[in-house]
């Protein structure tokens, strides 16, 4: 009966890269070499919160400061049925799914957040799941909104680009695939933890060392953003569609693109 599927943006709105990644993850596809998590400039605006303060909570404890987040939306594909005698296309919503939560931080991850990223990047039979929340605070540090997630795995990590000529802050992006999400108002569980701030990532502060090429790579002037994507057949599935027996099957790393002054590039050809 249901013989045609459309995405919610079938009215002509451009699909975001994030939506593309969610779809690619669901299909188990690998998109190597391109952008990983973050949308290209000019793409449809994601719901990034840039005012106030944002924090990450993992397993009930404050785990770090965020510079933005998006996703965590429950959505379903619109299923269009074959028109009947009245020529009207009947529609209904297909299986619900949870869009990945993408969090960005301009500070080096520490504590449980660092441990979670580290253990997720290591090839293993079962990847760690964590529950927590992205919390929005007002200017006084009081919690105003809470986006809870449970049993999430890290499905992608994008390391920030580097550029010795730029003085801007850079940010690390992490994509989470939760099993369940809920959005609530602020609670009085705890306030903003200013003391938990760690070092800020800057585009111009980096050092690249590759064994045998040190003389060239330490002079690198730019490194493009690169990342790791953890792919499983169930990536993107959630709720009813989630298969508890599936685990990530591929840890795919994107290419590394480095720009080096020609004056120091000779070791590349040695």
């Amino acid at each position, binding site marked *: 009966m249901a013989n045609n599927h459309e995405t919610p943006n079938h009215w002509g709105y451009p699909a975001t890269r994030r939506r593309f990644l969610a779809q690619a993850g669901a299909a188990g596809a690998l998109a190597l070499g391109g952008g990983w998590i973050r949308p290209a400039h000019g793409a449809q605006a994601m719901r990034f919160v840039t005012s106030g303060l944002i924090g990450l909570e993992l397993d009930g404890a404050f785990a770090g400061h965020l510079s933005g987040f998006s996703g965590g939306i429950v959505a379903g594909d619109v299923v269009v049925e074959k028109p009947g005698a009245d020529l009207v296309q009947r529609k209904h919503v297909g299986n619900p799914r949870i869009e990945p939560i993408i969090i960005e931080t301009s500070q*080096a*991850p520490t504590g449980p957040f*660092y441990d979670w*990223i*580290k253990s997720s*990047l*290591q*090839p293993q039979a079962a990847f760690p799941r964590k529950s927590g929340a992205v919390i929005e605070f007002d200017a006084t540090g009081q919690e105003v909104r809470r986006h809870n997630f449970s049993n999430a795995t890290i499905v992608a990590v994008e*390391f*920030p680009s*580097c*550029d010795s*000529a730029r003085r801007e802050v*850079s940010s*690390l992006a992490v994509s989470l695939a939760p099993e369940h999400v809920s959005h609530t108002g602020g609670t009085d569980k705890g306030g903003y933890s200013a003391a938990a701030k*760690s*070092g800020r*990532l*800057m585009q111009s*502060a*980096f*050092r*690249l*060392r*590759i*064994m*045998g*090429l040190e003389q060239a790579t330490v002079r690198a*002037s*730019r*490194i493009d953003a*690169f990342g*790791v994507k953890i792919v499983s057949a169930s990536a993107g599935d959630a709720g009813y569609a989630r298969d508890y027996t599936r685990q990530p099957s591929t*840890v795919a*790393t*994107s*290419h*590394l*693109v*480095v*720009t*080096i*002054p*020609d*004056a120091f*590039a000779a070791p*590349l*050809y*040695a």
Partner: protein
Amino acid sequence: MLEYLAPDLQTALLTVNLFNLGIFRISPESAEQAGGEGMAFSRMEMYCESVSIGTAMEADARRLEPARLRRD
């Protein structure tokens, strides 16, 4: 290994260990593209099999010599 450094340019805030790199393309890049003035740049593209985050000591256990592209 790629280190994201603190403003003192000495302390590593985050270390990304890169394993089994291989250069597959080197191409010239104009000064405008590279953001430099009057300098020529090379753009080196490498595949990478896996990464980890952690200390340099942890990386030593897994580090291998990178494959290289030969000019001839």
